[in-house]
């Protein structure tokens, strides 16, 4: 029912618009990408760049297909626990790793930054998962991470979990914001 012909005839009908939104929310590919595939988003870590134009960046639009999609986010939620992300970051509140549900993003809080953090690692303890977790799954995990601070549409964010409640479900959290480079771990700055 998500065919383009339907799209053509039903543009004026509200109901169909909703149905369409729901389709995108659930859209998925049935054949996953090959392990070697890697997206090549060009994102900077800072808003600062010499000259008036700001940093030169290039985004392919992949972000939307993950962070506005309930299926991808749900997969990310499952993988987040599967790859032991919760061991360090809890259910978003953090632990030995920083919290992910707040608005402070040491290495940038856009999904492309989070993908990079997972893939490349970060110098204060975040391991690099390149070659260990398929790229598609990294995007799914990153999309779920974005949902923790409700930086994704409400309709795509996960609802209440079946097991012990760590707090209100992602879906019930107020929409979040992102403060990039909000904090550098104090211990990163070695005195002397």
């Amino acid at each position, binding site marked *: 029912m998500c065919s383009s012909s339907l799209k053509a005839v039903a543009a004026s009908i509200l109901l169909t618009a909703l149905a369409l939104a729901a389709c995108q929310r659930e859209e998925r590919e049935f054949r996953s990408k090959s392990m070697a595939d890697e997206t090549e988003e060009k994102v900077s870590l800072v808003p600062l760049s010499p000259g008036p134009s700001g940093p030169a960046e290039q985004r392919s639009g992949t972000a939307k297909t993950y962070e506005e999609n309930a299926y991808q986010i749900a997969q990310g939620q499952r993988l987040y626990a599967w790859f032991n992300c919760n*061991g360090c970051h809890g259910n978003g509140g953090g632990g030995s790793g920083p919290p992910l549900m707040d608005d402070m993003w040491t290495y940038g809080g856009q999904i492309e930054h989070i993908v990079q953090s997972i893939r490349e690692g970060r110098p204060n303890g975040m391991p690099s998962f390149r070659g260990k977790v398929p790229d598609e799954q990294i995007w799914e995990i990153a999309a779920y991470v974005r949902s923790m601070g409700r930086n994704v549409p409400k309709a795509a964010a996960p609802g209440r979990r079946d097991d012990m409640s760590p707090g209100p479900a992602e879906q019930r959290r107020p929409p979040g914001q992102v403060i990039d480079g909000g904090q550098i771990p104090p211990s990163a700055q070695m005195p002397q």
Partner: protein
Amino acid sequence: MASAQTDPPHPAVPSFAASPGDGQWTIPQKNYASTRFSDLSEINTENVKNLQVAFTFSTGVNKGQEAAPLVVGGTMYVLSPYPNILYALDLTRPGAPLKWQYNPKPASAAQGVACCDVVNRGPAFANGRLFFTTLDAHAVAVNAETGEEIWKTKLGDINRGETMTMAPLVVKDKVIVGVSGGQFGVRGWIEALDVDTGKSIWKAYSTGPDQDVKIGANFKPFYDSDKGKDLGVATWPADGWQQGGGTVWGWLSYDPDLNLVYHGTGNPGPWNPNPRPGDNKWTAGIFARDADTGEARWFYQIAPHDLHGRDGNNETILLDMEWEGKPRKVLVHPGQTGFVYVIDRVTGEVLSAKPFHALTAATGVDLETGKIQYSSDKEPVSNRVIRDICPAASGAKNWNPSAFSPRTGLLYIPHVNLCMDWGSTEPNYIAGTPYVGAEIRMFPGPGGHMGEFSAWDIREGRELWTINERFPVWSGALATAGDVVFYGTMDGWFKAVHARTGEVLWQFRTSSGIVGQPTTYRGPDGRQYVAILSGVGGWAGSIVSGDLDPRDGTAALGFVNAMRDLKNVTAKGGTLHVFKLP
């Protein structure tokens, strides 16, 4: 507090640990018996109210400050959390200025495999050198005069989750250290290094075949459950022992008369007990080992097949006491299970195990078999949240050491009052990532407070007095011959307490919450000083030191649920405070 004449004598400090009265504080434990008692008495119950700041010093790092400030001669040594900078302060000059600093430059990535903040429990001094461990699993020897590195040895691999946080203990020509990482499925070990070269002399694992554990003909455990071949393999599902935990990150004691080193072993991995049927030897217990060879002599398991993250790494205080009419050499261990164990340190026999924390997880310890009696209704099962487990996964007390005063015969136990809800999840071993398999929410135990500072009668196995604290007491204790006992609180108070009554005689609000170890010394001017590092953190304080989000109760392995308010009372810090009388 007048004692009847028929009372048996107080437990005594063994002669090898009798304080030499030199006014120094050279190892965090103070002495091999780990009494943390100083015979200095200038500061007493009458004048302690006049204590004032002598000097302060910033460690430059705003993480949990768990180290003990040491004093050797006219120099004080302060070790910061990661990046583990060692500072030497010149006590002979006004204001104790910096003499030198040594920076081992540990790998930054090690922060990612440190389970519970990037703490360090302090250096140890011996033979003109300071020895300490670094977060990226190195042991270092530094010239105490000049700060020059003598040797630095890599002992573990952070890619396997191995880190180091403990204070070494120097015994004869060996420096003994162990590994952290019980939340990362690290297979625990303890290792003795040559003091001169840092080369390995012996290494003993906490799980696996007898050969690896250094169990041989001289291993004579007291209880039958510890007898048999290769129990470090047989009490695990196939290969489970290889990521079975039992890390050695806590306190070491040493009896020179018996030539035995005592050390704990950490919780088994994963925390979720369901995937590891069996007793999971040799985790969550206490080993006595020959100091020269590392050979095991006895073992006692405080938590066979641990259910709730219990760990044997708490301090072991070595005392001599009369027990049922006979003199005994004992080891006192205020355990994570909630019991104060009094163990014969020659044989490993448990003489007494009395509770010092609200209990629902266990009902007692059977002294016939040595076995803890678990409450079956608190046993984790899949797909159900088990509620009201006391004590919580932190244990009734955690790393922060008690102090014993031979003057009062009492053990001063800093501890928590915490319970938890526990939901088991499927653990997934990936080297270098956490291996827990449980979601936890901690909350205050009966009474609503989360910390206690208790004076404990070892013989009777009961509390004489206790001071309730709003937050967990995560600092160590210090006892002095002035009958003043010191400890700190997570909301930043450094307190002096009457050793006999528990009356708070003096308190000072430091710059941050306190999770450190107070020490005392006689300065070059002949006066008594008291030192404490302030700077909140550690597992309990990571909500502040790690900027954690209080909306997630399961954060920091469930500690955040209990500590939501800590951000409202203290910020991060890293400052040495030293006090003296006017």
